[in-house]
């Protein structure tokens, strides 16, 4: 789902600024290897979120001493994340209502 990846990215970098590779790793770890973010989807998504003004990017030195592009959540991004999260809660609750065995 399109919006879902956005939400995952926003949630992931809500804690601290991260670069793309780390975001993908974090999502994988946090979901217990269930969610594998395809790199093909990750970067366009990051660029879109940045164009929307929800995240901000800056070049910094990474943990292994190389230049990497770090993404930070903006205030607008935080707000959008909260809305999306609430939306997701509603949606998943609704789906589980239907899917749960009677």
């Amino acid at each position: 789902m399109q919006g879902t990846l956005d939400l995952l990215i926003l949630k992931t970098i809500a804690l601290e600024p991260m670069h793309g590779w780390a975001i993908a790793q974090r999502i994988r770890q946090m979901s217990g290897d269930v969610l594998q973010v395809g790199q093909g989807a990750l970067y366009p998504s990051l660029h879109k979120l940045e164009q929307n003004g929800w995240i901000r990017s800056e070049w910094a030195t990474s943990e292994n001493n190389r230049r990497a592009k770090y993404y930070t959540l903006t205030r607008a991004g935080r707000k959008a994340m909260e809305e999306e999260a609430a939306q997701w809660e509603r949606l998943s609750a609704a789906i589980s209502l239907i899917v749960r065995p009677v």
Partner: protein
Amino acid sequence: MGTVVGGNLVDCAASLKESFGMRWANVIRLRLRSLFSRNKVEEELDEELRYHLERQIEAGIAAGMTLEDARYTALQSIRDIEQRKEECRDMRRLNAIDNAAQDFRYAIRGLRKRPMFAVITVLIMALGIGANTAVFSVVNGVLLKPLAYRDPDRIVTLTSSWKGGAKVRRVSRPDFEDWHKQSTAFSAMAYYRSSDEPTIAGSSAEFVHVARVSPEFFQVLSIAPVLGRLLTVEDEKADDSGPVLISYSYWQSHFGGNTNVLGQTLRVGGGVQTVVGVLPPRFQFPDHSDVWRTADAVDRTLPRTSLSFLAIGRLKSNASLEQAQAQLTSIAARLAHQYPDSNKGRTVAATRMRDDMVANVRLTLYLLLGAVGLVLLIACANVATLLLTKATARTREIAIRAAVGAGQGRIIRQLITEGLLLALAAGGFGLMMAWFGSKALIALAPADVPRLSEAGINGRVLAFTFGISMLCSLLFGLAPALYASRVDLNEALKQGGARTVVGGGASRLRGAFVIAEIAFSVILLAGAGLLIKSFVALSNVTLGFRPEHLLLMKTSLPVNGPNADPRTRRFFKQLVSEVSSLPGVSAAGATMGPPGDVESAGSYWIDHLPERPSINGEDAVFSVVTPGTFAALDIPLKRGRHFEDGDSASAPFTVVINEALARKAFRGQDPIGRILFAGFDSDKPMKIIGIVGDVRQWGPAHKPDAEIYMPYDQHVSGAGTNLIVVVRTATAPEALINTLRRTVRELFPDVPLRFTTMEDSLHEEVAAPRFRTLLLGIFAGLSLCLAVTGVYGLTAYVVGQRSNEIGLRMAMGATPRQVLRLVLNHGIALAGIGMALGFLGSLAGTRLMRSMLFEVTPTDPLIYAAVALTLGTVVVCASYLPARRAAKLDPLLALRQE
């Protein structure tokens, strides 16, 4: 607790505000960066993805893979790296701009490869756009632009109108005074009249257009003098020696623009007047006036029955036109009740001044705009067919582009860009054409079109041109684009080039365009045909007099006072006799208003006057003439005699009537010797001494009215001192102008003279019909040419596409004749459908022209037959050429061409 919550709220609001502003600043910065620092952004994108790849490889090695394996896995995971980059670029909205530029370059390259096609397309469209722009420039100047006064929409014209009857422009002064006093919707209200009056500034006498206005006139128009002051209520008392205002241009031409003009004198009419003010440049309302003065004593005593003035008012800022109209209507109803003899059934209409000014030309201009719009549609259809043909020929190219990954949207955008490019080029050329076209239109337009000087190319016209160019590009760019978007990849690539049986969709679309072209042409041709037929009818009208070799000389004796009448009488008698005896003059007379330009009409009574004369009796045209006038105009005498010198002021009063009046009032009885009264200048009984033939007094388009001719000697006070001398000449009338001027000036140095020929003044009468007939004719001709090219192009194309099939048919035994018929039938079928639709359209459209037609009905069968014949012939000819080519095909060659 509460304070904490409050604090949070404030904090929240502040952060919201901040984040909103910051966010947009950020977004804009990013967009600009994407656009202008392209390379930097690209490098960063590369670097970011490279970093990702490296980390992925490291992770692989850490997990125990060999370097090779790790690299392979990482590359696998980031498959199609270029496509990913493209997606990232898409997300940054870079591609849209990039693609547009690319489409544009591609379109230019495509057009350069087919220069003939590009030139033809641009020319056709430029013609359409140019013609539309030219007509719009006139419509804009005349109809749309606000008047050049302050708050022009508050200025209204007040006119009399009869319940259920015609609108009479003029109003009576007592009525006006009542409206003025009783209505509260106006901040100012004024009446005025204007005419050419003999005027002497310095030494030379000439006719100058002089306006007589009531004091609030300039408040209504919100005009302030550039020098001196305006007219006041006090000024009205001075009458003939009252002060005058002059126009800026008159100030420049007659007083050298000198500021000492104030206090200098002019002689208008009989009196001597002082200049007290100069009005701003370009202000010459009404009718190119150069001098403004107060209404005279006679004006201010005219009765309610005399509708002699025009009236205007300025609405108060809180009053609407509807409120003003409602007030005036109820005042008029009270007046009708109070003065039934004069005002019964009379009411008043308030119209916005601009609407009123252009009321007569509005229909003509909208007709032209509609016609020229149809021409544009035809041009669009024509170009769309061309583009469509090209698009079909390019099916393979499009299919290949689609196959290598261009999305459908991308291909459509590409084709629309081409259309846009063509339309913009055409718009540019069209604008140049319009610049000349606009000037030509202004030169051709009848002189009485108001505000013509304001027509021209300006911002609004430019916007219009740009707008229609864009619209056109959509109209003719969309069809091929839609067609191309349906191209079936497999089919298109399988076909051996463009040569196949004609693809169904595109062919039908092309056919529809040709049908539309023919239908629109039918409408234009029918409209033009009707106008031409009525113009011919108008030109062939028997006027009742002979306009050839007739010179008109307007003159006037500027006198007043007790001796004015006998002096004027002597003046004109001597003038006419001098002119008659000039060599080259066969007859001369003088009249108050020559045919086509009569000035007076009113009631008449036979045998005796009614006890209470009202204005609701029978009407006739009043003409006052000197002996010799009938001979000069060549109006035939039917019975009795003409006026003679013996019909003088002291002799019993006599009249001559026309046949229309004899028929109407005497119904078979002999009118000669009977007594007639006219509501003109006296209630004396007048004996009918002659009957003359009917003359079209109101111009060629109007049927002759009943007319009463009175001898000048007996009606000097009513006819006034301005007469028009009519001179029948043996040779070209213009040749006599100088001789006449010299002769008259020798006798009377102080009289102004103005010359025209009867044919010129009749020319003006038919200027409006000629204008619209000419233009509609041109547009119809243009549309016919375009439609013919359309039909020819389509048939030629179809023959080319079907040459295979035709070859096959001929190989199977079809004769050239049969092939000819096959191709012709195709063209004729399209023309048939187009004409049927066109006729339906014209039946609806030409009804709107009813008021422009003269002795022709909008459904004139002859015109429609002529249109069908013309178009039919032309279509057959246009499809015959390609059809013959098809019939001459060598079947073997055609089949081998696979």
